[in-house]
C-alpha cells in the first residue's frame, strides 16, 4: 500500500465517514469547490455535493452554532476553521453553548471542529496558534491533537462518531511533511488513549502534536551521544487525558519532561504536572520540568520564531539536566 501524508490521512478519514454515514456533513469557509485553504477537503464537494459540503459566510460563531443546531437534529457536522486561530471567534459558542448542551438540556451535540494549528511555519501570531489550553478547562468538550498520519485518520473517525463535540487540532507543519502507510480497513483510534511513541528506561518525555517529532529526535540524539534511554509518550488526546499511561511512564522512568509547543504559562503542561503530582508523586526522582514556548505572541521572523518555540536542542539540554538530577 502507498504511503499517505498526515493531510491525506485526514482527507481519507473525512471521505470514509461521509461514505459510511449520510448524516455527516462539512461546513466551513472555502471548503467546497476550492477544497479549503490547505486542500484538506479537496474533492469532497465533487463527491458528496453542495448539500453535504457547505461553503459558509465568514462567520466562525455561526458555523459552530449552526453545527450545534444541526447536531441536535441528528446530523454530524464537521466544521473547518480556516486556521484554528479563528476558533477564538467561536469561543463563546463552544464553551457556553456547545459544551453544556447535553448537561443542561439533554441535547446531543455530536460535532467536530477541526483546523490547521501550530507554528514552525512562519505564520506569525495569528496563523500559528495552539488553542488547546483555552478549552482544556471546559467540561463537555473533548480535545485531540494527533502527531502521526495514522492517528490523524483514526482519531478523526473516532471524533466524527463520538456523541459529543470533539475539537480536532491538526498540526499544519505536519500536513505534508510526514508520511506513512495507513492501517488497512476501518481504522479508528479511541479518544482518550495515549500512544507510546518510543520505549525507554531513564527518562520520560510526555508530549503531543508536532513536538512528538522533536522529542523523538532528541531521544535519538540522547541515546547516541549520552547512552540515555528515553521514553516518549504521545498523549494524542488531551481531554480526556490518559492518566494511566502517564502514571505508567512515570513509574517506569521516575523522571519526566513535559514538552509542548504552546506557551509555558497556562499551557497544558501545568495540568499534566498536577496529575503526576497527584497520582505518582512518590515515584518522582526529580522535579517534573517543562519545555514549551516562551510567553509571547508567536513572532513572524524565522530568527524570532525559532527562538520562541521549543527546539530539539532545548529538549536535549533539558533532558540532560533531568537525567543528571
Amino acid at each position, binding site marked *: 500500500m502507498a504511503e499517505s501524508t498526515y493531510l491525506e490521512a485526514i482527507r481519507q478519514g473525512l471521505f470514509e465517514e461521509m461514505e459510511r454515514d449520510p448524516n455527516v*456533513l462539512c461546513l466551513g469557509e472555502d471548503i467546497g469547490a476550492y477544497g479549503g485553504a490547505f486542500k484538506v477537503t479537496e474533492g469532497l464537494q465533487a463527491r458528496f455535493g453542495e*448539500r*453535504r459540503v*457547505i461553503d*459558509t*459566510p465568514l*462567520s466562525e*460563531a*455561526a*458555523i*459552530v*452554532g*449552526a*453545527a*450545534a*443546531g*444541526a*447536531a*441536535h*437534529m*441528528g*446530523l454530524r*457536522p464537521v466544521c473547518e476553521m480556516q486556521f484554528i486561530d479563528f476558533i477564538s471567534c467561536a469561543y*463563546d*459558542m463552544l464553551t*457556553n*453553548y456547545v459544551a*453544556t*448542551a*447535553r*448537561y*443542561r*438540556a*439533554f*441535547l*446531543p451535540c455530536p460535532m467536530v471542529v477541526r483546523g490547521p494549528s501550530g507554528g514552525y511555519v512562519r505564520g506569525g501570531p495569528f496563523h500559528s496558534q495552539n488553542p488547546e489550553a483555552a478549552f482544556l478547562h471546559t*467540561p*463537555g468538550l*473533548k480535545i485531540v491533537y494527533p502527531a502521526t498520519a495514522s492517528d490523524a485518520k483514526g482519531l478523526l473517525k473516532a471524533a466524527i462518531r*463520538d*456523541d*459529543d463535540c470533539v475539537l480536532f487540532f491538526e498540526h499544519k507543519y505536519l500536513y505534508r511533511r510526514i508520511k506513512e502507510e495507513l492501517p488497512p480497513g476501518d481504522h479508528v483510534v479511541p479518544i482518550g488513549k495515549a500512544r507510546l511513541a518510543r520505549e525507554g528506561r531513564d527518562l520520560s518525555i510526555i508530549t503531543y502534536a508536532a513536538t512528538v517529532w522533536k522529542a523523538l529526535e532528541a531521544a535519538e540524539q540522547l541515546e547516541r551521544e549520552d547512552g540515555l534511554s528515553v521514553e516518549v509518550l504521545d498523549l494524542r488526546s488531551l481531554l480526556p487525558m490518559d492518566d494511566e499511561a502517564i502514571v505508567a511512564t512515570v513509574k517506569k522512568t521516575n523522571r519526566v519532561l513535559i514538552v509542548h509547543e504552546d506557551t509555558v504559562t497556562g499551557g497544558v503542561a501545568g495540568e499534566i504536572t498536577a496529575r503526576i503530582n*497527584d497520582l505518582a508523586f512518590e515515584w518522582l526522582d526529580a522535579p517534573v520540568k517543562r519545555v514549551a514556548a516562551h510567553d509571547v505572541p508567536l513572532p513572524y521572523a524565522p530568527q524570532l520564531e525559532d527562538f520562541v518555540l521549543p527546539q530539539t536542542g532545548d529538549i536535549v539540554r533539558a533532558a540532560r539536566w533531568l537525567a543528571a538530577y
Partner: protein
Amino acid sequence: MAVTSASKPAAPPALNRDQLLELYYYMRLTRSLEERLVNLYRQTKVVGGLFRSLGQEADAVGSAYALDRSRGDVLSPLIRNLGSMLVQGATPLEILRQYMAKGDSPTRGRELNIHFGDTVRGFIGQISHLGDMVPVMAGVTLSFKLRREERVGLVYVGDGATSTGAFHEGINFAAVQRCPLVVIVENNGYAYSTPTTKQTACTSFKDKAVGYGIPGVRADGNDVVATYQVTKEAVDRARRGEGVTLVELMTYRRKGHAEHDNQSYVPPGEIQRWSSENDPVDRYIKILTESEGVSAAELQRLDARVVAEIDQATDQAEASPAPEPLDALAGIYADPPATPALWYREGVRSAVDQHERAQGWGTHDG
C-alpha cells in the same frame, strides 16, 4: 390542547372561535402563572431571578401559535417567552419545578427559569448569552432544509440582543442558506435599563432585514391576532422554501428586567400609559366580547380553569423532591456517563449532607 366551546365560523381569516379562545387561554395562563411565580419568589421558593412578561403576553403567544407542532416545528424562546413555551406544550408544572430548582424539573435542577428544551415537543434549551440561539436555530433549520423536511424554526431575540455578533452571524448565515427560519425581534423598548435609542441608531428593527436580503415586517405585538397573522405569513413563507423573515413585534416591558429592578430609569407615566391603554389581555377581551360574541362568563370559566391548573401544578411542584447531589456529576458526556467525585469526597458527601452553607463566611477580618 382543546378549549371546548361551540364552534362558530371564525372572524379573522384563519382562526376559528376555538382557536381565538385558545389564544386567550394561553395569555391568561402566562399572566397568572407569572403572578403565582411572584408569590413563590416572595416566599423565597423561587431560587434564582424571576423574569416577567407582563404586557408582552400577546406577542409571545400569538407568534408561537403560528407554528405547527404536529409538523415538527421548533422554537427557541427568550426568558420572557413563557407564553410561547406554554403554546408549544410546556406545562405549568414544568415551569414551576424549574424555577424552584426541583430534582424532577426539566433540567433536573441544572438550569434556571424557562431555560430548558425538548426536541420532541420542539423547543431548544437556550443559554443566557444573548444572540447565540440565532446561529443554533440557523443550524436546526438548515437540517430541515438539507433533509427536505417541511419544518419551520422560530427564534426570538430582544431589541438588545440584536446588537450581538451572534445575532448578525446567525441571521446572515440563515439568509444565505435560505433556511426555513423566522426571526422575531421583540421590541419591548428596553434591554435591561437601556432604551432602544442607545441600542441602535436605526428607528425600526425591521429595517435590519434589508441588510440581510430578507423581508422585514412589523406588527403590533400587543395585538395577539395581528401577531399571529404576521408570524403565520412568515412561517408559511419559510415552509414554502422561501427562506428567512425578520418580524419585529412592538410591545412594552412593563415590569423591570427582573423582579429586583425598580425601573428608576423609566420616564414617569410611561408604564402607566401602557398598562391602562395598551394591555394585551384587556385589548383582547374587548375584541372577543365586542366583536367575537364571547361572553364574560365564558372567559371567567377559562380564567377559573387557569387558576385550577396552576393551583394543582403548584401543589405538585412544591411536593417535588430536591435534586440528588450526585446527579450533578452525570451526563456531561454520552461516554463516560458520569465524572467521579473528587478525591477528598471519597466516602463523604458532607458539603451537602451537612448542608454546609456560607453563613459566617466572610466575617473574618481581611
